[in-house]
């Protein structure tokens, strides 16, 4: 049998949309039609292989409507071409491609209407070239779009009815319409399922990428470690990163960077830059030179238009010294020990812009001594993040947050700051990354003031035997050691436990007064404590070198006055048998003398 040509018909024939419910002779077929509809609906719903199901469906339709042949056309992704994906009966034109508006199929798809062409020979525009070539005689055509609501994805076309006058009826058209819609729904569902599977696959890959990215970040350190960081991606992967690692000499190499853009391309460049930093940072300890090398590498292979802003540096925990280079990044904030903020603006362009901008010595460096202060490095995801009222945090807001959380340990403070932006009710606007370097001033202070110094007796001093002489700086953190030395001395002098405790309390309170009121909390003052002992008394001398205090204003608290403060002097007078401010020594400062009588009954 010759193959039929479905294409090549013009659509000038009488077109009638079927609207009537089947009547008369059609009624006996009606229940058959319903059965077919139900059968195909079930096939489509249960289908795992949409192509196979469509093939089977088309064959059923062709048989049921007594057509000689049938073809199913689908619009391609562009919506400009119709392709025959399935055939049945005597037509075999699978793979045939038409323009989106060609022939009766194109007309039906374009206008989303069903067509019946009873006699193509009466169509003046009907091109019979293919028919002549194949020897097939096309008499009548039935075509219905496959559409759900306004979305048309193709059409089903049937040719030549077997038997009778070989012409299709309106009832045939109506049935084909119903079947086409059902097929359309099945195809749309199958496509959606496919898209979902693809989406899942991409998501899994992103999750893997995110995991790799997280592994590029340094491990969390104990609270006492001076450097801590946090990185929260706005999407699944991040264009930000930070890193820090100790060098062999005890210094810590650190960096924080922001890749332009978000998403996968930024994440890939981030991974590359992070690896370059970690690798080169182990051998190049000059931040300016290190950033210049990384810049050269990125420039060599960077994708056009992408760049990286970075702060890279080296911190020495022993001295508090920081050397850093800033390549186009948001200025880090230095919060010094006195509470003042200093911004450290970029002095070089971002990495990946131009290798020519780098001079021989590398990127310009900034040096600073933290001296017990804290350095905050962060991306604009922090300062441009939204706070509760919908406004941006900004640098001023960050400063305030830092001050509010000053009492917290460095990692807890960092968490508190981040929590302000990263709230449950609000998606992150941008990747959020921050690094904190908290210098504990102690190593440096210890170098200046070797803790509590025990001064040996010079043998002079006469009748009152010197038991203990200490020199220490006016810092609260020295008092614990002073107390334990005083306690041991009191016991040596024969004091009972309670008396020892009392002496410790009085001396501690006296030292506090010197630190707080004489030196006004200035940490570099010097305090000398002497304890002498004879048979029945301990004599304690406390010397400082601060401005001479007006002793008239020092008085114990009224005891019925319950309020914080003023207690220390009361304790001293309560515990000691004698308390006296001695005349100010010639070289300035203050001298306090306290005497405690020791009862030997115990």
């Amino acid at each position, binding site marked *: 049998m010759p193959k039929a040509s479905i294409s090549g018909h013009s659509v000038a024939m009488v077109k009638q949309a079927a609207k009537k419910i089947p009547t008369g002779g059609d009624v006996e077929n009606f229940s058959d039609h319903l059965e077919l509809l139900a059968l195909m609906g079930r096939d489509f719903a249960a289908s795992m292989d949409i192509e196979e199901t469509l093939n089977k469906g088309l064959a059923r339709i062709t048989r049921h409507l007594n057509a000689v042949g049938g073809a199913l056309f689908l619009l391609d992704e562009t919506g400009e071409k119709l392709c025959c994906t399935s055939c049945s009966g005597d037509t075999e034109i699978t793979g045939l491609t038409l323009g989106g508006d060609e022939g009766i199929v194109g007309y039906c798809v374009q206008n989303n209407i069903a067509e019946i062409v009873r006699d193509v020979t009466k169509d003046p525009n009907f091109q019979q070239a293919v028919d002549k070539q194949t020897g097939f005689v096309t008499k009548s055509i039935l075509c219905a779009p496959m559409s759900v609501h306004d979305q048309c994805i193709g059409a089903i076309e049937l040719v030549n009815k077997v038997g009778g006058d070989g012409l299709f009826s309106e009832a045939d058209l109506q049935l084909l319409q119903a079947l086409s819609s059902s097929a359309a729904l099945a195809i749309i569902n199958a496509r959606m399922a496919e898209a979902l599977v693809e989406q899942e696959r991409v998501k899994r890959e992103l999750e893997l990428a995110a995991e790799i990215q997280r592994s590029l970040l340094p491990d969390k350190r104990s609270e006492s470690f001076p450097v801590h960081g946090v990185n929260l991606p706005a999407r699944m992967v991040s264009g930000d990163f930070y890193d820090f690692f100790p060098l062999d000499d005890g210094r810590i190499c650190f960096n924080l960077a922001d890749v332009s853009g978000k998403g996968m391309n930024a994440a890939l460049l981030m991974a590359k830059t992070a690896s370059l930093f970690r690798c080169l940072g182990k051998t190049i300890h000059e931040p300016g030179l290190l950033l210049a090398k990384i810049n050269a590498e990125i420039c060599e292979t960077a994708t056009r238009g992408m760049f990286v802003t970075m702060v890279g540096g080296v911190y020495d925990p022993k001295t508090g010294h920081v050397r850093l280079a800033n390549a186009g990044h948001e200025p880090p904030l230095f919060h010094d020990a006195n509470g003042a903020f200093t911004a450290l603006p970029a002095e070089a362009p971002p990495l990946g812009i131009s290798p020519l901008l780098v001079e021989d010595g590398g990127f310009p460096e900034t040096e600073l001594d933290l001296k017990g202060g804290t350095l905050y490095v962060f991306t604009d995801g922090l300062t441009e993040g939204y706070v509760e009222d919908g406004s941006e945090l900004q640098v001023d807001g960050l400063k305030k947050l830092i001050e509010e959380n000053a*009492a917290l340990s460095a990692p807890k403070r960092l968490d508190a700051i981040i929590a302000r932006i990263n709230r449950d009710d609000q998606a992150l606007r941008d990747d959020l990354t921050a690094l904190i370097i908290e210098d504990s001033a102690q190593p440096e202070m210890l170098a200046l003031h070797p803790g509590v110094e025990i001064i040996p007796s010079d043998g002079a001093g006469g009748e009152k035997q010197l038991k203990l002489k200490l020199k220490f700086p006016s810092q*609260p*953190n020295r*008092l*614990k050691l002073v*107390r334990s030395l005083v306690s041991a001395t009191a016991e040596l002098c024969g004091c009972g436990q*309670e008396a020892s*405790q*009392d002496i*410790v*309390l009085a001396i*501690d*309170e006296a030292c*506090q007064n010197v*630190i*707080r009121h004489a030196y006004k909390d200035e940490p570099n003052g010097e305090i000398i404590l002497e304890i002498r002992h004879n048979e029945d008394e301990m004599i304690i001398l406390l010397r400082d070198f601060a401005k001479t205090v007006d002793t008239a204003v020092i008085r114990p608290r009224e*005891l019925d006055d*319950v*309020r*914080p*403060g003023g*207690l*220390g002097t*009361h*304790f001293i007078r*309560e*515990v000691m048998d004698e308390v006296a401010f001695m005349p100010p020594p010639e070289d300035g400062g203050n001298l306090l003398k306290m005497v405690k009588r020791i009862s030997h009954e115990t």
Partner: protein
Amino acid sequence: MKHDITEKNNVTIVSLVGDVDLESSPEARKILMECVNLNRPVLVNLSGIGYIDSSGVASLIEALQTARKRDGEFALVKVSDGALRVLQLARLDKIFTIYDTVEDGLAGVS
């Protein structure tokens, strides 16, 4: 100084452990005020106190006064000998409500 905060029967129990001195009392004050600000009865367990000075006592007084202003309960439990001596020296042992055990304290402030 270390601290630990727990909650039992809607009572906040804060334990201060170690030395509360000029160095650590700002932290002690902060902790105590945070507990008071929870607006629940507060028990301060002082069994682990080795040393407390006037600044530490001042923190306790401030917390007590803040709690009382709000009609909140604030009491000390298991006060160590050293801490009790300092409270006695300050004549504050009668100002603070002091319980020997946490259970007594819970019964007393609930």
